[in-house]
């Protein structure tokens, strides 16, 4: 049986995205992966474990926060994010053993309890929520699609403030960040 994979979404449906703008492109994150957001408060920093990992005070626990902004700027070669930062609190990360390894490592290091249900992602403060028609998203050209998908870019969208947006696989980006952090601690 031949399967047919449409190049563009033909469904006439909408989805909510969080849009983070950089100089060359927007990053589009599926809102369903995010529980909440908060303005980054430097006063709430408990410790800076590495340049890509912070621990923030959150009630009686600590919240691990990945510096996704720095990661994206370095790995995606995206320029610019000035001003304040925000923390996106993720959800549905239960099936991520490397996150569990990271939390265990941090709990051993800091001798304190760390939130195991959520993870924070530090992103530029210019993020906004936007409802987008799925038909405005396209798969990357087949030649470069496997590479981009392996790096965490699932689809593209022309338009928006920067002319192009990358719909990212948030879990893949988190995994890459965690793997980078754990390799630095070895």
């Amino acid at each position, binding site marked *: 049986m031949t399967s047919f994979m449409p*190049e*563009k979404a033909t469904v006439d449906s909408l989805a909510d995205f969080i849009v983070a703008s950089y100089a*060359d*492109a927007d990053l589009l994150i599926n809102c369903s992966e995010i529980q909440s957001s908060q303005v980054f408060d430097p006063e709430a920093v408990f410790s800076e474990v590495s340049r890509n990992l912070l621990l923030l005070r959150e009630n009686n626990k600590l919240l691990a926060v990945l510096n996704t902004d720095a990661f994206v700027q370095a*790995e*995606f*070669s*995206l320029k610019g994010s000035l001003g304040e930062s925000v923390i996106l609190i993720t959800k549905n990360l239960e099936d991520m053993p490397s996150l569990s390894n990271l939390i265990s490592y941090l709990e051993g290091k800091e001798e304190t309890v760390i939130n195991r249900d959520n993870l924070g992602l530090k992103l530029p403060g210019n993020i906004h929520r936007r409802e987008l028609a799925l038909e*405005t998203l*396209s798969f*990357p*050209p*087949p*030649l*470069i699609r*496997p*590479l*981009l998908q392996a*790096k965490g*870019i699932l689809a*593209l969208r*022309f338009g928006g403030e920067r*002319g*192009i947006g990358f719909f990212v696989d948030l879990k893949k980006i988190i995994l890459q960040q965690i793997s980078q952090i754990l390799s630095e601690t070895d």
Partner: protein
Amino acid sequence: MENDEILKALSEGVRNQAEETADSIQKEKFILAGLGEERYAFPSRHIREIMLLSELYFIPFVPPYIRGLINRHGDPFAVIDLHVLCHNEKLDGSKVLIMNIEESQSAFLISDVLKIMDVPMSSIHSLSAAFSEVPYFNGSFEDGGQEILIVNIDEVFKRLENDLLHA
């Protein structure tokens, strides 16, 4: 006229006709494109469309000779810069040749289309020593006293696939 003469005339005529027919079949159409100061021939069978370059969008992770993406009727096409492959310098191009290759969604950056021409296969020769080691060309022909290199599209894509595999 003797039978022999008739047969000889017939056979010569037939041969001439056959040569003419073969010649018309054995021509290839090329798009002669300027890339800065240089001129290259792209086999027209690989070209679907010539487009003005309006905006080139950034794309991460790809080799430097993929200059970015263009928006062709809502679909992203990867733009390949042959100038980067050959000279390691970015071309300030203004047009793109949209490729007619299944499953590629790619285009070549050019400065301009100079002409479209039929070139007899007999006029296409192997590369001179100066170019024989560059894999992205697979032949050449003369036009206006200048050697025009024929772009080996398959070889460019082979390089691209290999680079993407190891990226």
